[in-house]
């Protein structure tokens, strides 16, 4: 008898999904009316949202390039969502054609779409799992086919951890991933915050209660605490556009308007 599949298999497109709403923010059409409706409301409340998402996406790109530069050639992208353009494997393989990427998401539609897009790509895999099911993520046959955890791995939790409430013990979950990562591995995190844009953050959190993935905004100190056990790569925990920016980047002039923190830590 196989073990029960603890990941929810429910497909309910009448409820907004974080992955599809994110896609909408980025200008994608991988979404349904409920997703668009929620995204439009969110943007009406907080017009910077699309820019924040772009900045988040841009951070992911810079972080992957940075990790490639540090010799990392295998990535675990948890909460990967709907593939659009500039996905992790595209960024990574542009610099290292042999780079391997395992995408993980809890949203069954995002997983199905990712698998359709990536069908036939031997250097990527898509795993349907919950971040909190550490064993389920790391011991999935797809993960084990591509990743060699005895070598450094780049774990990406981009715009993910704000969907993990304190009650689910994110620090404990991260500690379990950290134990599985060999020293020299990296963790890249971006995280929504109420710091910088406190007026918008509250209503935004309220809006996300309608999704299957409510949000928990965290302070800079709380985000730093999540990276316990990792040495923060300079410049540490900063607003998204401030993390190793490229000249002329979006939002570089008023970084606090981009209400998200970014950080990359190296496993001790």
């Amino acid at each position, binding site marked *: 008898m196989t073990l*029960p*599949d603890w990941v929810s*298999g*429910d*497909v309910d*497109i009448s409820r907004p999904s974080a992955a*599809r709403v994110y896609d909408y923010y*980025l*200008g*994608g*059409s*991988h*979404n*349904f009316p409920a997703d668009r409706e929620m995204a439009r409301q969110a943007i009406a409340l907080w017009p910077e949202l*699309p*820019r924040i*998402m*772009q900045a988040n*996406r*841009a951070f992911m*790109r810079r972080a992957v390039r940075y990790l490639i530069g540090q010799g990392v050639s295998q990535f675990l992208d948890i909460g990967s969502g*709907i593939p*659009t*353009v*500039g996905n992790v494997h*595209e*960024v990574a393989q542009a610099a290292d054609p042999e780079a391997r990427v395992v995408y993980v998401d809890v949203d*069954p*539609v*995002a*997983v*199905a*779409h990712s*698998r*359709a*897009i990536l069908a036939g790509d031997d250097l990527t895999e898509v795993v349907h799992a919950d971040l909190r099911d550490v064993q389920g993520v790391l011991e999935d046959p797809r993960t084990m086919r591509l990743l060699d955890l005895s070598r450094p791995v780049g774990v990406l939790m981009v715009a993910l951890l704000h969907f993990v409430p304190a009650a689910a013990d994110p620090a404990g979950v991260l500690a379990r991933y950290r134990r599985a990562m060999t020293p020299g591995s990296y963790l890249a995190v971006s995280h929504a915050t109420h710091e910088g844009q406190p007026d918008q953050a509250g209503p935004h959190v309220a809006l996300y209660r309608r999704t299957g993935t409510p949000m928990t905004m965290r302070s800079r100190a709380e985000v730093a605490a999540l990276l316990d056990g990792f040495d923060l790569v300079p410049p540490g925990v900063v607003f998204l556009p401030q993390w190793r920016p*490229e*000249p*002329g*980047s*979006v*939002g570089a002039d008023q970084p606090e308007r981009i209400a998200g923190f970014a950080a990359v830590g190296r496993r001790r």
Partner: protein
Amino acid sequence: MRVAGGAGGGDAAAAARYSFARHWAEQVAGTSYVPWGPAELSDYLLGLLDRLMELLSAFDYDADAVSQVGADLVRAHFTGSETLQQTMVVLGEGLPALFGRPRPAYLDRRLVQALGALAAGYATALRDRALDEQDGIHRAMLMATRQAEKRLAVSEARFRTMFREAGLGIAIGDLAGNITDANPSLLQMFGYTADEFTRRNVSEMVHPEDAPSIWQSYDELVAGKRDHFRVEKRFFRKDGGIIWTNLTVSLVRDDTGAPSYQVALLEDIGERRRLQSELEYLAYHDALTGLPNRTQLCKRLDAIFARDEPGLRIGLCCIDLDGFKAVNDSQGHDVGDQLLVAVANRLTHLCPGPGQLVARMGGDEFLVLVERTSAVDQVVELVEHILAAVVTPVHVSGHELAITASIGIVEQSVADTTPADLMSAADITLYWAKRQGKNRYAVFDRGRVEEEIARYTLSATMPAAIDRDEFVVHYQPLISLSDGTLRGVEALVRWQHPTYGLLTPDRFIGLAEDSGAIIPLGRWVLATACRQARRWLQRFGDDAPFISVNLAPRQLQDPDLVADVTAILTDTGLPSDRLQFELTERAVMSEETGPLQALAALEEIGVRLAIDDFGTGYSNLAYLRRLPVHTLKLDGSLAVGLGEIDTPDPAAEKIVSALVTLAHAMNLDVTAEGIETPAQLQRLRALGCDTGQGWLLARPGPAHVVAAQLRRRATL
């Protein structure tokens, strides 16, 4: 082919185009998400700009190629409407300047056409992209749905199998209590068909004896106030029979947490309960007779004693069959068992009341408990019926068995006793009835018990008392009736008891003989007396008295007696002719050879022997001839029989006279015991008794009193 005056080469022109592209990039940055940094974006737009300028300069204007530039913007993921707007403005305002002067005449018109074509290409590509992405996400949704359904089907199949095959009864119902599904085990348990069951409502499953808490829990569950409860509950089967179940009801909620339906698991525990009640029956009943057993009787007693009922009295009879073991041994256990069953039936028949309980305690012992008695007579009356019923012969396997019973009766106020004391009293009383000759009853008597307990206590503590030196020896002088001199002393043991004070031998010598303590006690008395006699001998020489020590029959049978006596004489240094043993006539009239040999051996070592209490038994002088006896001690009753001075008894006087004459004829000394009056002393002296003993002459006393007498005499 190139049109004259079109976009020319040259560094200046290239720098202008580069600068234009960077401006374009700045204007569209942030309007859409593209996976590039500012420099990459600028490079990409420079490429598009070059293509546009080439198309605008071309001899044959190619609108499709221009619209392809718009499409390429979309392919790069410029999907925002703001991007197009900014692009139109940037191109419309800045492009003409890039062509230098003079600008071709057709340029303005072409530029308008080109912007239109680019916008159209952008729009078409954007629409296609949106449609493709919508198509993709729909397909993904369908795929995910199919997978979810497959998973659901697997888990549903798993659940169905479990539901169908489970030994547990499972029912599913809605919140209104309508049963929507019941598994085969449950149907079998209740005897309903699936259709019959699903027409039922939970509210019809009430059993009149349900604890109210069950239905309270149920109401809380369907109201969403609790998630499950577990109880033991009875249900009616379709045929009206009862089933006992271990019932667990769980509430299932939907994904918003609202109560959705209920699931009940029912484990048939009828078998377990039957077993339990059978075990309970066995625990409280005797397997052979079916009567209540000791456990049940004790429980009943405890319950009675727990009642708060002033003046409540209770009777308990302990019944034991006389000679039952003989029946078992001679007729076999099967017959014995049948006899017990017959007796049990008779007892039950005689004690039908609710306040009466007959129990078998094991073996051939029964107890009858009578509640709310008024007096012991009431119980005695019942017991007389029981005795009469038991003696009626029983026919078992062709044998006619006659048996009797002994019964101990105790009837007391509950306030005065405890269950354990009551049981033990009945037991003791039964023993009395047995000792009194069986086939009878005895009634408990607390005074008698206390006496027995005291006797038992004395007997039990005697060996330790010897070790603790609680015994003392007193001495009673034996006086020469011819000259009044002290001839000897009789050693008399006393027990200086810490609780009861100074005890005389009649209180404990019998016990010591029963328990065997007489052997060590006798040895101790002998050693003490001999040591004392030796001291007197050293002090007073020939005037010192001999010592006379009593020897119990049991001591005479002790094979170590002669060795012990020899050892004591050696240890104390007392010459053997200074020691006399007093034995009763009964002790020496033994058929056995042991005592006679012991007497011969004692005589051999030179110890004198006296017959004590002579005249109370057979007074068989002929028999005494054959024994090595030296002295006769005439019992005190003979002295009393002589009468006083004013009431002489000539017949008694003749008997004593004859005894003295005969004894002297056999060379025996005669000691008269129990001399209490001057008249007795005068007669006994006149009749020729050699020595006398009694309160008139001297009372028994400690050794120093005897010594004082001797000193007085010595000083005379």
